[in-house]
């Protein structure tokens, strides 16, 4: 049930940041599915991003810390695979934050623009980058290497 308490807690839980891309909150990423109150218990439901994302465990711990910090003691964090996360769930604000941080937001690879100079048709250097969600590219105009958040 979405009570006022649950609504208030949603903004607190939603502000937990991704440990690997700390410019994004879990609300921006779209992985926070719901915050409900079930009797005395707060139930937070999240959906993991990539299967191999090692940050998920950290995010669960950070959600728990955020709840404890505001005095919530009875809670449960549910990891739901029902409906797969996709990069379409990243909010518009999240996309803007990514670009501002120097990471090209998820688009088909032909449409990626350099986050520094908006140069078109950057070159793919490595399909697999520094984290599960990113590929490494280099701008054909300004020569800047940058990460692209893969569209999934």
């Amino acid at each position, binding site marked *: 049930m979405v009570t006022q308490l649950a609504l208030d807690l949603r903004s607190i839980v939603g502000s937990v940041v991704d440990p690997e891309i700390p410019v994004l909150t879990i609300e921006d990423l779209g992985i926070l599915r719901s915050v409900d109150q079930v009797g005395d218990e707060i139930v937070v439901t999240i*959906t*993991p991003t*990539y*299967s*191999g*994302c*090692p940050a998920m465990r950290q995010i669960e711990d950070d959600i728990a810390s955020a709840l404890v910090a505001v005095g919530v003691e009875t809670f449960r964090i549910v990891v*739901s*695979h*029902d*409906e*797969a*996360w996709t990069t379409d769930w990243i909010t518009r604000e999240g996309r803007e934050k990514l670009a501002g941080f120097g990471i090209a937001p998820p688009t088909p690879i032909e449409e990626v623009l350099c986050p520094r100079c908006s140069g078109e048709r950057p070159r793919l*250097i*490595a*399909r*697999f*980058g*520094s984290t*599960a969600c990113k590929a490494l590219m280099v701008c054909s105009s300004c020569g800047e290497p940058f990460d692209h958040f*893969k569209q*999934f």
Partner: protein
Amino acid sequence: MIFAGVPQGTPEAGLDPRIRMVVAHGDDNLVLAQRLGELISWAPELEIDIALGNIALDHLGVARALYTHAGEVEGAGRTEDDFAMRRTEREFLNLLLVEQPDGDFAHTIVRQFFFDVYQRLLWADLATADDSTLAGIASRAAKEAAYHHEFTSSWVIRLGDGTEESHARMQTAVDGLWRFTGELSAPYPDVWRHQVETTLNEAGLTIPDDPYQRTGGRDGYHTEHLGHLLAEMQWMERAYPGLEW
């Protein structure tokens, strides 16, 4: 004592076939993740090292999700660790292909390529399963398998159609691993073979004539390699039962 003729640790014999299927796919992904993990810091180039590590992580993540789901559906309190760390070789239901040693880079890539083609077909199938959690895991894994497949098929072509040396190594890998593909392609024999053959043709590689196939992985009968892999992967849990990170 009279030997009853029933092998010890008969693999998950009493398990509901639906759960058994989820566990078997979990086993494929876990065992391959472990194999790829062995290569970290050993790949031919830094980018490939990172790629193989990322692919391993994807498989590990899929395995964890499937085991957790199997445990929940079973309802007997088994966790992902129970499936991964507390079962014996005879209880593992993975395909024989994924337990084969890394060999040289050609073997690693060909093993992965055969498996990627299979997993793309598998996840597309399971993405429409009635079990919505399984469907969710599958539809996410489908995109990852497609991404892995782009990587491996491009290497199959580059190396098969590369130098004399790289071509010879790739053909040796295809010949050596082919006998483990029967049980893997069994659910989708024609389409799997067609897709594999198309890439191999482009790479100038050929499918061996020898029709002999080794099977048994799905029934818990493995090649000699799995026991060694599990011994290394499970030793910490075996030495310190219940250890938490």
